[in-house]
Every structure is written in structure tokens, then in C-alpha cells.
């Protein structure tokens, strides 16, 4: 504590500025393409194609209005959010007991099972796109939210088990034993004592499940047509007979960034710790 305070006051200016320069450059690199998208979303198509300007000369919200007045656009949003949340809840619910089993017990074939689970995280969605389409069509899950949510479980459940197992292994086993001695049943111990202890781990897992389900499109698009069509797939509609509607495309892009940005904003204080995945 004292030592860190002292460091800030000691003369370290040269390093501070170097850090500042590196970070500024990197952040500019990250933000420039996003800014460009924002810039375009606020221009008319005529301006986009005729003049090249670093900011909108003729500021317009027409592109956004187009999106918000068209029900297929905002239903795309609701579809995406619905299956992402479903997936997150399902993944965590099934992964919690499994991760506990892997972190606490040895059982027949446990190591192979763990590796087999992880292999599904390594499976290219492209490999599964077509068979998924056929399977889900035959069992009536095609074009449903739960269908997409289940498909995304393919890579999110193994990831959730993996992350949660890391956090759970950090909790000493003595805590379990003490609770059992104190007369807790497994269920009560798990919900009352154990889950609060790994709350940050659950949060991190939820974040990663949200993230990978939200950004995935290949499976989501293959498994939906109308009723559950994700927002990101709706974007491809902007190619019309008169060519690309660049302004609306850009506005749609900006709108798909917003939910992610909101989630990040809410979890910003846990990001650093969370990314350690309990495995540092």
C-alpha cells in the first residue's frame, strides 16, 4: 500500500509517457474503424458515395429511423437477445454441477470426458452447420429461439465447464467438508455457501457465454429463417436492387455494437479479474 503510493510520486515520467503513447495508439487503432462506421451511419448515401469527409457534413438520423420503423429490424434484436440469454442460462445451469464434479471428484473416464467436452469447443461451426440444419429441422427446432440456444451450447457448455472448474478448484475442499459436518445437505450447501463463493466465476462464465453466443452468426443464421432471425443476419438485407444501402448498413452495425458495449460497461470492474479465469 505504502509502497505503491510512493512509486507514483517518484520520478518516473519517461515511462509514464511511453505507456501513454502505446496505449493511445492502440486505442486509436481499435476505435478508428468503429468511428468510421459511426461516421457513415450519420451520412446520407449520396454523401457517402460523393464526398470523402472525416465527419458528416450533412448530419442525418434517417438511417436509424429506417431501422426503428421497420419491425423486422427490431424483432431481430429481440430474437438475438432472447436466444443469447437462453443459452447463457442453460449453459450455466448444466455446467455448474458438472464443473463441481470435475473439480472435486475422480470418476470413471473423467479425464477423457473433460477432453471430449473441450473438443466440442474446437469444433468448427462450419462442420456442423449442415447436419444441425437437418437435425433441428427433423425435430422441429428449426427457426426457434431455443434451437439456436441449444446449438450454441455446443461450444458454450464446454467453455462454461472449463472456466467454472478453474474457479471451483480455487475453493478449498475443506469448506465443503465443514459444511457437510455442519449438517448441510448438498443442495443447500451448493446454493447457499458454494455459489456465493464462486459468484465472480459465475459472472465471468455468463459474460463469456453471452459474448460467444452474441457474436456467433454462422449457426444462428443457418438455423433460423424468420421467427428467430438474429439481428446480425438481418443486416445482410441492406443489399437492394439499387446497390448497397451503406448508410443503413452502417447504422445497423452501430446498433449491434451497443448491447455488447452495455454489457462491458456493467462488468467493467470485473473484467481484469475475470479474464484470469481463476487460473493465474
Amino acid at each position, binding site marked *: 500500500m505504502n509502497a505503491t503510493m*510512493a*512509486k507514483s510520486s517518484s520520478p518516473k515520467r519517461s515511462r509514464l509517457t511511453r505507456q501513454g503513447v502505446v496505449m493511445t495508439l492502440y486505442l486509436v487503432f481499435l476505435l478508428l474503424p468503429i468511428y468510421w462506421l459511426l461516421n457513415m451511419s450519420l451520412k446520407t448515401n449520396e454523401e457517402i458515395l460523393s464526398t470523402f469527409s472525416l465527419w458528416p457534413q450533412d448530419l442525418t438520423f434517417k438511417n436509424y429511423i429506417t431501422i426503428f420503423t421497420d419491425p423486422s429490424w427490431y424483432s431481430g434484436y429481440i430474437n438475438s437477445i432472447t436466444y443469447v440469454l437462453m443459452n447463457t442460462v442453460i449453459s450455466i445451469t448444466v455446467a455448474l454441477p458438472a464443473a463441481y464434479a470435475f473439480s472435486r471428484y475422480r470418476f470413471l473416464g473423467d479425464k477423457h470426458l473433460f477432453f471430449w467436452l473441450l473438443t466440442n469447443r474446437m469444433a468448427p461451426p462450419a462442420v456442423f452447420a449442415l447436419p444441425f440444419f437437418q437435425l433441428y429441422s427433423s425435430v422441429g427446432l428449426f427457426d426457434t429461439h431455443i434451437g439456436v440456444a441449444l446449438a450454441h451450447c455446443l461450444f458454450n457448455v464446454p467453455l462454461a465447464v472449463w472456466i467454472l472448474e478453474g474457479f471451483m478448484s480455487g475453493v478449498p475442499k475443506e469448506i465443503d467438508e465443514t459444511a457437510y459436518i455442519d449438517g448441510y445437505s448438498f443442495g443447500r450447501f451448493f446454493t447457499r455457501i458454494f455459489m456465493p463463493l464462486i459468484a465472480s466465476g459465475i459472472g465471468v462464465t455468463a459474460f463469456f457465454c453471452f459474448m460467444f453466443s452474441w457474436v456467433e452468426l454462422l449457426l444462428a443464421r443457418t438455423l433460423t429463417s424468420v421467427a428467430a432471425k438474429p439481428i446480425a443476419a438481418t443486416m445482410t438485407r441492406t443489399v437492394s436492387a439499387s446497390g448497397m444501402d451503406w448508410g443503413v448498413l452502417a447504422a445497423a452495425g452501430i446498433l449491434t455494437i451497443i448491447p455488447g458495449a452495455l454489457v462491458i460497461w456493467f462488468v467493467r470492474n470485473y473484467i481484469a479479474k475475470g479474464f484470469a479465469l481463476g487460473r493465474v
Partner: protein
Amino acid sequence: MAEIYLKKLAHSYLPNPQKPEDYALKEIDQVWEDGKAYALLGSSGCGKSTLLNIISGLLTPSQGQVLFDGQEVTQLPTEQRQIAQVFQFPVVYDTMTVYDNLAFPLRNRKQDEASIKTRVAEIADMLELTADLKKKARGLTADAKQKISLGRGLVRQDVAAILFDEPLTVIDPHLKWLLRMQLKALHQRLNRTMIYVTHDQTEALTFADQVVVMYDGYVVQIGTPQELFERPEHTFVGYFIGSPGMNVLPVSLEGATAYLNGQSLALTTRYISQPGDKLELGIRPEFTQLSPIPSAHSLTVTIKRIEDIGRHKIARADYQGREINIVIPEDQPVSVDYKYLTLDPRHIHLYANGWRLKQEASA
């Protein structure tokens, strides 16, 4: 090897300190002798870590200077100060072997491998690490890791002082005293200046030649363990050192007589006090005696309980609402009927506002 002079040193974490309370370390002006072992003792937040960090160079004091052998080092960064430090938690380079760990400071200083080899062998031998030299440091126990961090300080011949920041915190209790004894023996053998920060009085008293007791940013007393026990300069030293600590009772003073709620006590000499001072009498439990028969200056107390801790018994007594601890040698009888307490006048100290009063004769 160096003498450390802390010249008019004070530190505040605030940019613009005004009041004394703003200072985490109040002004001190002291010379710590070359080759001695010092312990900085105090409870947490007393400023001992601040002082240690100033000496090690992690912290630049807001006022005053630090001199090693007369050379000012106040503004020098840690790496240029020729000090070594052992931290609370073992700091070892996990991926290196024990040998490489010990050789690391010398390699960084571009010494040749042959001389590094002899030096490391010598230090490893001293720390009883020779058998582990080829092992990875990561797999070792906490006490072995602490020895490695100490060893990294010892291999360097240019080290002015070795600092210890509560180094035994993570060591198993049964290994603590062993390591402490090794440290003590090393100090006697090497004669290096060592500064040892701790909140554990036993560690401080067994390790150090001189114990620096700190309280609320003040250095309240520097002395040998003996001096701290016999003549605490501040009631805090009385409380903090000794088990149980010194008894402190409010008194009033008249010439060579102290009055404790009307009960007079004869003192060996007269004391000088200012009117308005908060006067207190301090006496260690070891210098009090219980008896079943009243005497001239005895206090009538109620014994609440008697604890037998092996070497001696401790009586917890109540004197007009104040607790007094009494140490009773194992062979002496005691019971609740022993309600007359006499205080040995030669070991009574008087304190004004916490600080020990000078006796008139010496003043």
C-alpha cells in the same frame, strides 16, 4: 556494512502536511550503528513499514535525510543503495533453480561465473541450502524460500544493510523459532547491519540488539530488550512489551508520595511534573506482590481469577474498577484471600501524558 544515520527524518503521505497527525512518521534523528541488529516493533499502522521503506528507498521522505556511512542516499533509488530485503511473503524466482536464484544478484552485477560459484556455495552452506541447489525454487517450502531471499541479500558483498519485513509471517510455527535462531546466529557470524520489522515482541526481543518501539508515528523508545523491560519510556512500551503488559494506574503526586484514589504510596525519589499533566503510575506485574496481611502502602484488591501458565501464575485483580495483573512465582502460595497488594517502589515509574517522568535528582 554501514552505519545508518536518519537525519531529521519525517514522512507524510499528504502533499501538504500541517498538523502532527498528518505525519505517518514523526521526526526522528538517530544513528543506527554498523553491524548491529535492530528491530522495529509496533502494531500495524505505527509507521514501521514507512520507516523501512524510507531506508530501503521505496519511499522518499518528505523531510530529512538518510545517510549510509555519512553518504547521503535520500534520493537514490533502491537498486543503488546497496541494501537487501526479505519480504513478508517469500519472493523467489520460481522458474530458476536455487543456485540461479542465489547467483541472480551477482549475475546482474556482471560478476564472473567462477567467483559467483564460490560465493553461492559459501552462502548456500551457511544457510544449509547446499542439498537443494539444483532444485527448482518453486517446489520448496516457505521457510526454504525465505532462506533463498535472505541468501540473495547475503551473496552480495557490498550490502550495507539487510532489511526484514515481517519475514516469518508465513512460516509454520514450529519452524519459526528455528529460523529465528539461524538468523540470530548468522547475524553474530556476519556482523552485518540488520533491520527487522515485526509486530511480535518475542521476535523483536530475541533477535535484536536494539529494539526500536514505534507508536502512532513516533519512535517512543530505542533500547536493549532489558532496558525496554525495566524502564519503559512510554506507557505504550510498558503495555506492548511484557506478558502481561505493565499495569498503568492514574495517580496524583505530592513530593515523593503518589496517591492512588486516596491510598498513599511511597516513592524512592521526587518527580517533576507540570500542573495539568495526566499523571499515571506504571508498574510491571513482575514487581508486585500479593499478601494475606495488610502493610503500610498496600492496596486492597479483589482477586478475580488466577491463571497458571506454567512458568508462573498470573492473578487478575480488581482495584477500584481497574484491572491489575500480578505475576506470582510458581512456588508461592496464592488464594483469593490474598488481597493486599504491595508495589516494589524501586520499579515504580511515573508517566505524564504517557511519557516517563524524569526523576528530580537526575533532572
